[in-house]
Protein backbone atom coordinates (compact mmCIF):
# COMPACT_ATOMS: atom_id res chain seq x y z
CA UNK A 1 0.00 0.00 0.00
CA UNK A 2 1.18 3.44 -0.91
CA UNK A 3 1.42 5.98 1.91
CA UNK A 4 1.78 9.71 1.33
CA UNK A 5 3.34 12.07 3.88
CA UNK A 6 3.35 15.87 3.85
CA UNK A 7 0.10 16.26 1.92
CA UNK A 8 -1.98 19.42 2.37
CA UNK A 9 -4.63 17.28 4.10
CA UNK A 10 -2.17 15.94 6.65
CA UNK A 11 -0.51 19.34 7.23
CA UNK A 12 -3.81 21.20 7.63
CA UNK A 13 -5.15 18.24 9.60
CA UNK A 14 -2.82 18.70 12.56
CA UNK A 15 -4.10 22.29 12.96
CA UNK A 16 -7.67 20.93 12.86
CA UNK A 17 -6.78 18.67 15.80
CA UNK A 18 -5.56 21.72 17.76
CA UNK A 19 -8.86 23.62 17.42
CA UNK A 20 -10.48 24.86 20.59
CA UNK A 21 -7.12 24.71 22.32
CA UNK A 22 -4.36 26.96 23.65
CA UNK A 23 -0.78 26.96 22.32
CA UNK A 24 1.70 28.40 24.79
CA UNK A 25 5.13 30.00 24.31
CA UNK A 26 7.74 28.29 26.48
CA UNK A 27 11.47 28.93 26.87
CA UNK A 28 12.50 25.88 28.95
CA UNK A 29 11.51 22.19 29.20
CA UNK A 30 10.16 22.94 32.69
CA UNK A 31 7.80 25.58 31.31
CA UNK A 32 6.72 23.13 28.60
CA UNK A 33 5.73 20.63 31.28
CA UNK A 34 3.77 23.33 33.15
CA UNK A 35 1.97 24.19 29.90
CA UNK A 36 1.12 20.55 29.19
CA UNK A 37 -0.09 20.04 32.76
CA UNK A 38 -2.34 23.09 32.43
CA UNK A 39 -3.94 21.60 29.31
CA UNK A 40 -2.07 23.29 26.43
CA UNK A 41 -2.63 21.52 23.08
CA UNK A 42 0.87 22.42 21.86
CA UNK A 43 3.85 24.54 22.84
CA UNK A 44 5.93 27.05 20.90
CA UNK A 45 9.58 26.50 21.78
CA UNK A 46 11.67 29.67 21.73
CA UNK A 47 14.63 31.24 23.48
CA UNK A 48 12.90 34.42 24.53
CA UNK A 49 9.24 35.26 24.72
CA UNK A 50 8.16 38.23 22.61
CA UNK A 51 8.09 40.79 25.43
CA UNK A 52 11.74 39.96 26.19
CA UNK A 53 12.67 40.07 22.49
CA UNK A 54 11.06 43.51 22.48
CA UNK A 55 13.04 44.56 25.57
CA UNK A 56 16.40 43.19 24.35
CA UNK A 57 16.34 44.61 20.84
CA UNK A 58 18.94 43.40 18.34
CA UNK A 59 18.36 40.58 15.86
CA UNK A 60 16.04 37.75 16.96
CA UNK A 61 16.73 34.41 15.21
CA UNK A 62 15.65 30.76 15.26
CA UNK A 63 16.19 29.32 18.75
CA UNK A 64 19.03 26.99 19.66
CA UNK A 65 18.36 23.43 18.54
CA UNK A 66 19.44 22.09 21.90
CA UNK A 67 16.67 24.09 23.55
CA UNK A 68 14.05 23.01 21.01
CA UNK A 69 15.12 19.35 21.27
CA UNK A 70 15.02 19.52 25.07
CA UNK A 71 11.43 20.76 24.88
CA UNK A 72 10.50 18.08 22.31
CA UNK A 73 11.86 15.45 24.70
CA UNK A 74 10.02 16.87 27.71
CA UNK A 75 6.40 16.74 26.46
CA UNK A 76 4.09 14.49 24.44
CA UNK A 77 2.05 17.32 22.86
CA UNK A 78 3.13 18.85 19.51
CA UNK A 79 6.08 21.26 19.55
CA UNK A 80 6.25 24.28 17.24
CA UNK A 81 9.24 26.55 16.64
CA UNK A 82 9.81 29.84 14.85
CA UNK A 83 11.87 30.82 11.84
CA UNK A 84 12.54 34.30 10.50
CA UNK A 85 10.30 35.43 7.64
CA UNK A 86 11.85 34.16 4.40
CA UNK A 87 14.65 32.22 6.12
CA UNK A 88 14.09 28.93 4.32
CA UNK A 89 17.37 27.45 5.56
CA UNK A 90 16.22 27.85 9.18
CA UNK A 91 12.99 26.12 8.11
CA UNK A 92 14.94 23.26 6.50
CA UNK A 93 16.83 22.82 9.77
CA UNK A 94 13.66 22.73 11.88
CA UNK A 95 12.11 20.20 9.50
CA UNK A 96 15.22 18.01 9.77
CA UNK A 97 15.04 17.86 13.58
CA UNK A 98 11.35 16.96 13.38
CA UNK A 99 9.42 19.84 14.97
CA UNK A 100 5.68 19.39 14.43
CA UNK A 101 4.90 22.89 13.11
CA UNK A 102 7.06 25.79 11.86
CA UNK A 103 5.94 29.36 12.62
CA UNK A 104 7.31 31.75 9.99
CA UNK A 105 7.05 34.61 12.40
CA UNK A 106 7.17 38.40 12.46
CA UNK A 107 8.24 38.13 16.11
CA UNK A 108 11.74 37.26 14.86
CA UNK A 109 13.72 39.72 12.75
CA UNK A 110 12.81 39.17 9.07
CA UNK A 111 15.51 37.61 6.90
CA UNK A 112 13.86 38.66 3.63
CA UNK A 113 11.91 41.89 3.28
CA UNK A 114 10.29 40.82 0.00
CA UNK A 115 9.53 37.10 0.06
CA UNK A 116 8.25 34.47 2.46
CA UNK A 117 9.28 30.80 2.40
CA UNK A 118 7.86 28.43 -0.22
CA UNK A 119 5.98 26.41 2.36
CA UNK A 120 4.65 23.83 -0.10
CA UNK A 121 8.19 22.46 -0.39
CA UNK A 122 8.11 21.06 3.16
CA UNK A 123 6.68 17.96 4.83
CA UNK A 124 6.46 19.92 8.08
CA UNK A 125 3.42 22.23 8.17
CA UNK A 126 3.73 26.00 8.61
CA UNK A 127 1.66 28.54 10.52
CA UNK A 128 1.89 32.23 9.51
CA UNK A 129 0.57 35.50 10.87
CA UNK A 130 -1.89 37.73 9.02
CA UNK A 131 -3.49 41.12 9.58
CA UNK A 132 -6.19 40.79 6.94
CA UNK A 133 -7.71 38.35 4.47
CA UNK A 134 -5.36 39.20 1.62
CA UNK A 135 -2.30 38.49 3.76
CA UNK A 136 -3.86 35.25 5.03
CA UNK A 137 -4.60 34.03 1.49
CA UNK A 138 -1.11 34.97 0.23
CA UNK A 139 0.39 32.85 3.00
CA UNK A 140 -2.00 29.97 2.19
CA UNK A 141 -1.03 30.25 -1.50
CA UNK A 142 2.61 29.84 -0.39
CA UNK A 143 1.59 26.69 1.49
CA UNK A 144 0.73 27.80 5.03
CA UNK A 145 -1.41 25.08 6.68
CA UNK A 146 -2.64 27.30 9.52
CA UNK A 147 -3.15 31.06 9.96
CA UNK A 148 -3.01 33.16 13.11
CA UNK A 149 -3.72 36.82 13.64
CA UNK A 150 -0.51 38.76 14.14
CA UNK A 151 -1.78 40.97 16.91
CA UNK A 152 1.10 42.86 18.48
CA UNK A 153 3.23 40.22 20.17
CA UNK A 154 4.62 40.87 23.62
CA UNK A 155 2.41 43.91 24.15
CA UNK A 156 -0.13 42.41 26.56
CA UNK A 157 -2.62 44.49 24.56
CA UNK A 158 -5.42 42.71 22.71
CA UNK A 159 -6.42 45.60 20.44
CA UNK A 160 -4.33 44.58 17.41
CA UNK A 161 -5.48 40.94 17.55
CA UNK A 162 -9.10 42.14 17.65
CA UNK A 163 -8.44 44.38 14.64
CA UNK A 164 -6.86 41.54 12.66
CA UNK A 165 -9.48 38.86 13.43
CA UNK A 166 -12.28 41.32 12.67
CA UNK A 167 -10.60 42.34 9.43
CA UNK A 168 -10.36 38.70 8.34
CA UNK A 169 -13.87 37.62 9.35
CA UNK A 170 -15.49 40.82 7.98
CA UNK A 171 -13.75 40.37 4.62
CA UNK A 172 -14.86 36.72 4.48
CA UNK A 173 -18.45 37.72 5.25
CA UNK A 174 -18.35 40.31 2.47
CA UNK A 175 -17.03 37.78 -0.05
CA UNK A 176 -19.87 35.37 0.71
CA UNK A 177 -22.40 37.95 -0.48
CA UNK A 178 -20.35 39.21 -3.44
CA UNK A 179 -21.74 38.31 -6.87
CA UNK A 180 -19.38 36.19 -8.96
CA UNK A 181 -18.54 39.04 -11.33
CA UNK A 182 -17.00 40.99 -8.44
CA UNK A 183 -14.56 38.30 -7.36
CA UNK A 184 -11.76 39.13 -9.80
CA UNK A 185 -11.76 42.73 -8.63
CA UNK A 186 -11.90 41.65 -4.97
CA UNK A 187 -8.90 39.35 -5.53
CA UNK A 188 -7.01 42.24 -7.14
CA UNK A 189 -7.96 44.62 -4.31
CA UNK A 190 -6.72 42.35 -1.53
CA UNK A 191 -3.74 40.98 -3.48
CA UNK A 192 -4.76 37.33 -3.24
CA UNK A 193 -5.08 34.52 -5.81
CA UNK A 194 -8.50 34.34 -7.44
CA UNK A 195 -8.93 30.60 -6.81
CA UNK A 196 -8.57 31.11 -3.05
CA UNK A 197 -10.85 34.16 -3.08
CA UNK A 198 -13.49 32.15 -4.96
CA UNK A 199 -13.12 29.25 -2.50
CA UNK A 200 -13.62 31.54 0.49
CA UNK A 201 -16.64 33.17 -1.20
CA UNK A 202 -18.15 29.71 -1.68
CA UNK A 203 -17.37 28.17 1.74
CA UNK A 204 -17.53 31.24 3.99
CA UNK A 205 -14.33 30.32 5.78
CA UNK A 206 -10.59 30.10 5.32
CA UNK A 207 -9.38 26.82 3.80
CA UNK A 208 -7.15 26.37 6.89
CA UNK A 209 -7.64 26.78 10.64
CA UNK A 210 -7.55 30.35 12.02
CA UNK A 211 -6.08 30.98 15.49
CA UNK A 212 -5.63 34.24 17.39
CA UNK A 213 -2.20 35.43 18.48
CA UNK A 214 -0.62 38.59 19.78
CA UNK A 215 -1.69 40.20 23.03
CA UNK A 216 -3.83 37.58 24.82
CA UNK A 217 -3.10 37.89 28.54
CA UNK A 218 -6.30 37.05 30.46
CA UNK A 219 -9.07 34.40 30.35
CA UNK A 220 -11.51 37.07 29.18
CA UNK A 221 -9.13 38.00 26.31
CA UNK A 222 -9.26 34.36 25.18
CA UNK A 223 -13.07 34.21 25.40
CA UNK A 224 -13.31 37.48 23.44
CA UNK A 225 -11.15 36.20 20.60
CA UNK A 226 -12.98 32.86 20.40
CA UNK A 227 -16.33 34.67 20.21
CA UNK A 228 -14.93 36.90 17.45
CA UNK A 229 -14.24 33.80 15.35
CA UNK A 230 -10.79 32.51 16.32
CA UNK A 231 -10.66 28.70 16.40
CA UNK A 232 -7.99 28.61 19.10
CA UNK A 233 -5.50 30.76 20.96
CA UNK A 234 -1.75 31.35 21.01
CA UNK A 235 -0.50 32.85 24.26
CA UNK A 236 3.00 34.22 24.13
CA UNK A 237 4.15 36.36 27.00
CA UNK A 238 0.76 36.27 28.76
CA UNK A 239 1.46 33.16 30.81
CA UNK A 240 5.09 33.21 31.82
CA UNK A 241 5.15 37.01 32.27
CA UNK A 242 2.19 36.86 34.63
CA UNK A 243 3.04 36.44 38.30
CA UNK A 244 1.38 32.99 38.57
CA UNK A 245 1.98 31.05 35.32
CA UNK A 246 0.32 27.80 36.44
CA UNK A 247 -2.90 29.56 37.37
CA UNK A 248 -2.92 31.76 34.27
CA UNK A 249 -2.25 28.82 31.97
CA UNK A 250 -5.09 26.76 33.38
CA UNK A 251 -7.51 29.71 33.53
CA UNK A 252 -6.88 30.61 29.87
CA UNK A 253 -7.41 26.96 28.84
CA UNK A 254 -10.72 26.77 30.74
CA UNK A 255 -11.96 30.07 29.26
CA UNK A 256 -11.01 28.98 25.73
CA UNK A 257 -12.94 25.70 26.10
CA UNK A 258 -16.10 27.29 27.51
CA UNK A 259 -15.81 30.65 25.78
CA UNK A 260 -19.58 31.10 25.39
CA UNK A 261 -20.33 30.26 29.04
CA UNK A 262 -19.66 33.44 31.03
CA UNK A 263 -19.98 31.60 34.34
CA UNK A 264 -17.01 29.36 33.44
CA UNK A 265 -15.00 32.34 32.20
CA UNK A 266 -15.89 34.14 35.46
CA UNK A 267 -14.69 31.12 37.48
CA UNK A 268 -11.45 31.17 35.46
CA UNK A 269 -10.99 34.89 36.22
CA UNK A 270 -11.80 34.29 39.89
CA UNK A 271 -9.23 31.47 40.10
CA UNK A 272 -6.52 34.07 39.52
CA UNK A 273 -7.33 35.82 42.82
CA UNK A 274 -5.25 38.93 43.00
CA UNK A 275 -2.50 37.63 40.69
CA UNK A 276 -1.42 40.18 38.13
CA UNK A 277 -1.52 39.66 34.38
CA UNK A 278 1.57 40.66 32.44
CA UNK A 279 2.17 44.43 32.20
CA UNK A 280 0.67 45.89 29.02
CA UNK A 281 1.86 48.46 26.50
CA UNK A 282 -0.08 51.21 24.75
CA UNK A 283 0.60 50.34 21.12
CA UNK A 284 -0.07 53.93 19.97
CA UNK A 285 2.94 55.03 22.03
CA UNK A 286 5.33 52.46 20.53
CA UNK A 287 7.66 53.82 17.85
CA UNK A 288 7.00 52.44 14.35
CA UNK A 289 10.36 50.66 14.38
CA UNK A 290 9.30 48.55 17.37
CA UNK A 291 6.03 47.29 15.89
CA UNK A 292 6.20 43.62 14.84
CA UNK A 293 2.86 43.25 13.04
CA UNK A 294 4.02 45.29 10.04
CA UNK A 295 6.77 42.80 9.20
CA UNK A 296 6.02 40.54 6.22
CA UNK A 297 3.81 41.39 3.28
Amino acid at each position, binding site marked *: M*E*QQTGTATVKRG*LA*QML*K*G*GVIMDVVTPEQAVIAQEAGA*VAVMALERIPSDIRAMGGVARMSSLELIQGIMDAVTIPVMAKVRIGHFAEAQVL*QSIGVDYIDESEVLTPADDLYHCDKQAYTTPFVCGARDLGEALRRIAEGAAMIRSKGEAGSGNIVEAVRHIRAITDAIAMLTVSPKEELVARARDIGAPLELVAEVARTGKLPVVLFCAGGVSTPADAALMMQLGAEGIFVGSGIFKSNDPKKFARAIVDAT*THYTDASVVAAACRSLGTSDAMPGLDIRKLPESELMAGRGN
Partner: protein
Amino acid sequence: MSALVGVLALQGDVQEHMTALGRAGARALAVKTRGELDRVDGLVIPGGESTTVMKLLSRFGLDDAIVARVRAGMPLWGTCMGMIVAANDVAGLDQPTLRLIDITVRRNAFGRQNESAEVPLSIPVLGEQPFPAIFIRAPWIERVGPGVEVLATYEGHGVMVRAANVLATSFHPELTGDSRVHRYFLEMLGAVGMDTSAA
Protein backbone atom coordinates in the same frame (compact mmCIF):
# COMPACT_ATOMS: atom_id res chain seq x y z
CA MET B 1 -36.58 10.82 14.01
CA SER B 2 -32.93 9.99 13.27
CA ALA B 3 -30.53 9.29 16.12
CA LEU B 4 -28.96 12.24 17.95
CA VAL B 5 -25.21 11.73 18.09
CA GLY B 6 -23.05 13.81 20.40
CA VAL B 7 -19.55 14.99 19.55
CA LEU B 8 -17.44 15.74 22.61
CA ALA B 9 -16.63 19.41 22.10
CA LEU B 10 -14.03 20.26 24.74
CA GLN B 11 -11.29 20.51 22.09
CA GLY B 12 -10.43 19.07 18.68
CA ASP B 13 -11.96 18.63 15.22
CA VAL B 14 -15.56 18.75 16.42
CA GLN B 15 -17.14 20.50 13.42
CA GLU B 16 -15.63 18.00 10.98
CA HIS B 17 -17.37 15.14 12.80
CA MET B 18 -20.67 17.05 13.05
CA THR B 19 -20.60 17.65 9.28
CA ALA B 20 -19.69 14.03 8.54
CA LEU B 21 -22.46 12.71 10.83
CA GLY B 22 -24.96 14.95 9.06
CA ARG B 23 -23.79 13.60 5.71
CA ALA B 24 -24.25 10.05 7.01
CA GLY B 25 -27.85 10.84 7.98
CA ALA B 26 -27.65 11.55 11.72
CA ARG B 27 -28.39 14.65 13.75
CA ALA B 28 -25.33 15.88 15.67
CA LEU B 29 -24.97 17.81 18.93
CA ALA B 30 -21.79 19.37 20.33
CA VAL B 31 -21.40 18.07 23.90
CA LYS B 32 -19.65 20.23 26.49
CA THR B 33 -21.87 19.64 29.53
CA ARG B 34 -23.56 16.79 31.41
CA GLY B 35 -26.94 18.11 30.30
CA GLU B 36 -25.94 17.80 26.65
CA LEU B 37 -24.51 14.33 27.27
CA ASP B 38 -27.84 13.20 28.76
CA ARG B 39 -29.63 14.03 25.50
CA VAL B 40 -27.54 12.01 23.03
CA ASP B 41 -27.97 8.40 21.83
CA GLY B 42 -24.27 7.90 21.08
CA LEU B 43 -21.02 9.84 21.49
CA VAL B 44 -18.03 10.54 19.26
CA ILE B 45 -14.75 11.61 20.88
CA PRO B 46 -12.99 13.45 18.03
CA GLY B 47 -9.37 14.06 17.15
CA GLY B 48 -7.46 16.43 19.40
CA GLU B 49 -4.91 16.31 22.21
CA SER B 50 -5.53 13.50 24.69
CA THR B 51 -3.66 15.07 27.62
CA THR B 52 -5.70 18.27 27.21
CA VAL B 53 -9.06 16.54 26.90
CA MET B 54 -8.50 14.16 29.84
CA LYS B 55 -7.77 17.17 32.05
CA LEU B 56 -10.86 19.04 30.82
CA LEU B 57 -13.08 15.94 31.23
CA SER B 58 -12.06 15.69 34.85
CA ARG B 59 -12.16 19.46 35.58
CA PHE B 60 -15.68 19.76 34.22
CA GLY B 61 -16.98 16.48 35.67
CA LEU B 62 -17.74 14.72 32.39
CA ASP B 63 -15.44 11.71 32.81
CA ASP B 64 -17.62 9.74 35.25
CA ALA B 65 -20.78 10.64 33.35
CA ILE B 66 -19.40 9.32 30.05
CA VAL B 67 -18.14 6.12 31.69
CA ALA B 68 -21.57 5.52 33.28
CA ARG B 69 -23.41 6.06 29.96
CA VAL B 70 -21.05 3.80 27.98
CA ARG B 71 -21.18 1.04 30.64
CA ALA B 72 -24.99 1.28 30.39
CA GLY B 73 -24.74 0.59 26.64
CA MET B 74 -24.40 3.96 24.89
CA PRO B 75 -22.32 3.51 21.70
CA LEU B 76 -18.99 5.38 21.74
CA TRP B 77 -16.53 6.00 18.92
CA GLY B 78 -13.11 7.52 19.49
CA THR B 79 -10.94 8.79 16.63
CA CYS B 80 -7.20 9.16 17.30
CA MET B 81 -7.30 11.21 20.53
CA GLY B 82 -10.68 9.58 21.20
CA MET B 83 -9.11 6.13 20.89
CA ILE B 84 -6.48 7.08 23.49
CA VAL B 85 -9.11 8.52 25.85
CA ALA B 86 -11.23 5.35 25.57
CA ALA B 87 -8.34 2.86 25.91
CA ASN B 88 -7.56 0.94 29.08
CA ASP B 89 -3.98 2.19 29.13
CA VAL B 90 -1.23 4.00 27.28
CA ALA B 91 2.08 2.20 26.67
CA GLY B 92 5.06 3.77 28.42
CA LEU B 93 3.11 6.71 29.86
CA ASP B 94 1.36 7.19 33.16
CA GLN B 95 -1.58 8.87 31.47
CA PRO B 96 -5.11 8.58 32.87
CA THR B 97 -7.83 7.34 30.47
CA LEU B 98 -11.53 6.43 30.69
CA ARG B 99 -10.77 2.65 30.43
CA LEU B 100 -13.76 1.81 28.22
CA ILE B 101 -12.13 -0.68 25.83
CA ASP B 102 -9.55 -3.32 26.76
CA ILE B 103 -6.68 -2.19 24.56
CA THR B 104 -3.24 -0.70 25.18
CA VAL B 105 -2.37 2.11 22.78
CA ARG B 106 0.96 3.70 21.97
CA ARG B 107 0.79 7.44 21.36
CA ASN B 108 2.53 9.04 18.36
CA ALA B 109 3.39 5.48 17.40
CA PHE B 110 4.19 6.18 13.76
CA GLY B 111 6.34 9.20 14.73
CA ARG B 112 5.93 12.97 14.90
CA GLN B 113 4.09 15.17 12.38
CA ASN B 114 6.58 14.54 9.54
CA GLU B 115 5.47 10.87 9.61
CA SER B 116 1.75 11.73 9.48
CA ALA B 117 0.32 10.16 6.31
CA GLU B 118 -2.60 9.33 4.05
CA VAL B 119 -2.93 5.59 3.48
CA PRO B 120 -5.36 3.46 1.45
CA LEU B 121 -6.42 1.07 4.22
CA SER B 122 -8.08 -2.31 3.85
CA ILE B 123 -11.12 -2.54 6.19
CA PRO B 124 -12.95 -5.78 5.30
CA VAL B 125 -16.15 -4.92 7.22
CA LEU B 126 -16.56 -1.82 5.03
CA GLY B 127 -16.21 -3.69 1.73
CA GLU B 128 -13.46 -4.23 -0.79
CA GLN B 129 -12.67 -0.63 -1.64
CA PRO B 130 -9.76 0.65 0.51
CA PHE B 131 -10.61 3.43 2.99
CA PRO B 132 -8.68 6.74 2.65
CA ALA B 133 -7.20 6.65 6.16
CA ILE B 134 -5.56 9.83 7.46
CA PHE B 135 -3.10 9.27 10.30
CA ILE B 136 -1.96 12.40 12.18
CA ARG B 137 0.57 11.83 14.98
CA ALA B 138 -1.55 8.74 15.35
CA PRO B 139 -1.62 6.03 18.01
CA TRP B 140 -1.58 2.31 17.24
CA ILE B 141 -2.82 -0.59 19.30
CA GLU B 142 -0.17 -2.69 21.04
CA ARG B 143 -2.36 -5.06 23.02
CA VAL B 144 -5.89 -6.28 22.46
CA GLY B 145 -7.86 -7.85 25.31
CA PRO B 146 -10.43 -10.65 25.05
CA GLY B 147 -13.64 -9.65 23.31
CA VAL B 148 -11.98 -6.93 21.24
CA GLU B 149 -12.26 -7.43 17.49
CA VAL B 150 -9.52 -5.97 15.27
CA LEU B 151 -11.20 -4.52 12.16
CA ALA B 152 -8.08 -3.11 10.44
CA THR B 153 -4.32 -3.22 10.82
CA TYR B 154 -1.52 -1.11 9.42
CA GLU B 155 2.22 -1.81 9.64
CA GLY B 156 1.43 -4.83 11.79
CA HIS B 157 -0.63 -3.02 14.43
CA GLY B 158 -4.34 -2.66 15.03
CA VAL B 159 -5.70 0.72 13.92
CA MET B 160 -9.46 0.01 14.11
CA VAL B 161 -11.09 -2.09 16.82
CA ARG B 162 -14.51 -2.76 18.26
CA ALA B 163 -15.71 -4.31 21.50
CA ALA B 164 -19.51 -4.43 21.93
CA ASN B 165 -20.66 -0.77 21.95
CA VAL B 166 -17.20 0.83 21.71
CA LEU B 167 -15.46 1.58 18.40
CA ALA B 168 -11.98 3.09 18.07
CA THR B 169 -9.95 4.24 15.04
CA SER B 170 -6.36 5.55 14.94
CA PHE B 171 -7.24 7.58 11.84
CA HIS B 172 -9.65 10.37 10.95
CA PRO B 173 -12.63 9.41 8.75
CA GLU B 174 -14.10 12.87 9.52
CA LEU B 175 -11.38 14.50 7.39
CA THR B 176 -12.43 12.55 4.29
CA GLY B 177 -15.57 12.61 2.17
CA ASP B 178 -15.99 8.85 2.74
CA SER B 179 -18.92 8.22 5.12
CA ARG B 180 -18.49 4.47 5.57
CA VAL B 181 -17.05 4.52 9.10
CA HIS B 182 -19.63 7.09 10.22
CA ARG B 183 -22.39 4.88 8.78
CA TYR B 184 -20.86 1.83 10.50
CA PHE B 185 -21.07 3.70 13.82
CA LEU B 186 -24.67 4.72 13.16
CA GLU B 187 -25.48 1.03 12.55
CA MET B 188 -24.01 0.32 16.01
CA LEU B 189 -26.55 2.78 17.44
CA GLY B 190 -29.32 0.81 15.79
CA ALA B 191 -27.88 -2.51 16.96
CA VAL B 192 -28.04 -1.59 20.65
CA GLY B 193 -31.71 -0.77 20.45
CA MET B 194 -31.68 2.96 19.79
CA ASP B 195 -34.79 4.09 18.04
CA THR B 196 -33.59 5.37 14.69
CA SER B 197 -36.81 4.93 12.74
CA ALA B 198 -39.76 6.36 14.67
CA ALA B 199 -41.02 9.82 13.72
